[in-house]
């Protein structure tokens, strides 16, 4: 069994093994309440806003290649995106990438979950805090149990970096993650703006410039497309 080498304490080893089961990722509970989203001076036009959330569970890490491969094995689903099966088989602990929004939604449905809205993703990444430092260093490298900032050269396996205060892993700087939110059409200009649906992806990838992505950054992306560094994680409502 290939285990991710970096942030793999005993607790995470069992979590990781559980996460290999389809839909089996460990989840954290976000209790019902009012939480802050957005940021001051944000260029993506989401000022600090208090939003009310019902309680929900969210995966502690993005869906992995191994989980997605099991999903493909058990269904006849053909991904829309440029998902690379051969490469995924070689890196089972890496987050699944190269999936479109539709691919991600079908997986979530299979796992009895759903995709998060952008605001659900954001409050979990901010560890539910109001004044949490919203621009974080995204890159870490472990040496003797201590994490140092570094520049990432490619996608890391899940659990490679420390979690935030509520145990949410890979929250920023590894891969972008799909959300179900639509990008506001009034922020788009030009005659092609209605040519296809534009969604919001969150989190920033290893391809971004250091400190260029905030928890509040709303990245527009056409929903029918995919990227080799765009994946997803799921959420679940308490009653389901």
């Amino acid at each position: 069994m290939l285990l991710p080498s970096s942030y793999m304490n005993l607790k995470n080893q069992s979590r990781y093994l559980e996460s290999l089961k389809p839909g089996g990722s460990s989840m954290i509970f976000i209790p019902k309440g009012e939480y802050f989203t957005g940021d001051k001076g944000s260029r993506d036009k989401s000022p600090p806003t208090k939003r009310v959330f019902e309680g929900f569970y969210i995966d502690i890490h993005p869906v992995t290649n191994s989980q997605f491969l099991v999903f493909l094995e058990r269904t006849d689903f053909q991904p829309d995106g440029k998902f690379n099966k051969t490469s995924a088989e070689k890196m089972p602990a890496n987050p699944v990438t190269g999936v479109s929004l539709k691919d991600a939604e079908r997986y979530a449905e299979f796992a009895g979950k759903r995709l998060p809205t952008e605001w659900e993703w954001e409050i979990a990444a901010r560890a539910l805090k109001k004044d949490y430092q919203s621009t974080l260093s995204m890159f870490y490298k472990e040496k003797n149990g201590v994490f140092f900032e570094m520049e990432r050269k490619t996608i890391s396996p899940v659990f490679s970096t420390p979690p935030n205060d509520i145990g949410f892993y890979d929250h920023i700087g590894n891969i972008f993650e799909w959300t179900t939110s639509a990008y506001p059409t009034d922020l788009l200009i030009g005659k092609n703006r209605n040519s296809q649906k534009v969604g919001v992806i969150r989190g920033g990838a290893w391809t971004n410039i250091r400190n260029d992505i905030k928890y509040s950054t709303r990245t527009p992306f056409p929903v029918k497309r995919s990227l080799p560094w765009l994946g997803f994680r799921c959420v679940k409502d308490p009653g389901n």
Partner: protein
Amino acid sequence: MRAIKINSRSIKIIIFTFALLFAASLFVYLSMKKERDWVIDEITFKTRDGFELSAFLLRPENPGKNKYPSVACFHQLSGNRDDFLKLFPMFAKKGIVTLAPNFVRQRANLSAKRITDLKDALEYLSSLDFTRKGKTGIITASFTVETGMYAIQNNPDIIANVIISGPILREESREWITRNSDLAIFNIASILDGNHYLLMEEYTARSLNPLSRNLLIEKTETPFTLPAHGTFVFDEIPEIQNHIADFFAEVFGIDKEADGIVKNPKPKDMITFFSTDNMPINATFRKPAGKSIIPALLIYPPESETRLYYDELINTLVDKGFAVLAPNTKRACRKKTKINLCDMEVNGALNFLREDPDIDPERIAVLFPGFYHYFAIKAVNNNELSVDLIMLMNFRKFREFLDLEKSRSENGPAVRFIRSSEQQKILFYMRKYLKK
């Protein structure tokens, strides 16, 4: 059969009709030719802080009331505007007005002047009577790509961007690719170009304009001893020039080409010589009028800069009876690992001078700025260049000589006045060694 009577009156009518037809055809031909004539002007325009930027402007000679789409070309650090001249004939054919400034105020960070200069160049272009608003594009290369993306943000008139060997773009720039749904991007990258070849997939995926595209140069071997990068790809993979022209024509919706022909494809004094590995290198070459068998000076520019900084010095030297060849920087010759590449260019330049019948092959000197010292020392030790004089100027002195130390911080490197004392210093050495 009925006989046809031809009298002198009929003959006169026939001749008159033919003459009329001929004149009309001639008029139509000349009018069409006039419309097809395009010219390259060397112009200057002022930026918002009063700095004068020089540029090549490709335009129809007689635009009349026609409006044309336009493109502004911004060369990379270590590059020069001359590389874009290769595109001009194709742009004239398509009917695209083109501005290629000498983009001199580039620095390692995104300073305001870099961005405002680029914006001002675009404003200048749109202020011309014969350019069509809303049909403007840019070409940026390497270091200039991010500057270009910054400068065009919130400017919906810029609808096409050719990105050659781009760096990792900031998120703000990536967002603009999606937010301006009319913006089409054309990424060109070599597999040796850092991460651009990888990231261009994301940039294109983010674009809502279906005309966006990528061109990946997978071959690592080029005809030259240099990996394809920035505008050098025009030399290394010439077919890219056609791809760029076709891209702009599609984005601008050019149904009918202007079929323009450039009357003066090469600016005054510009020559092209070839390095010993056959890379074409543009240079300014001036000779004193009416003299034969003259001494010559091969003068190299500071890295990242073009021969234009020397214009005043070149004129002075020519007035004093020297021929001057001032090549553009093509390869970085100061780095240890690049010494052999430098060899190829300097020897190419010397070969060019020696083949000129007006030049005395025994009296050629080479002037290098100090950071070429690795190369200069190697050349002197091995006597590779076969010249009697290599003038190597201390880096600091050289910058002072060019008055760059001060001007870079104030106005950028292009503002430079060679003081007469400095000119005298150069002339002193030249006279001494070349026995003028």
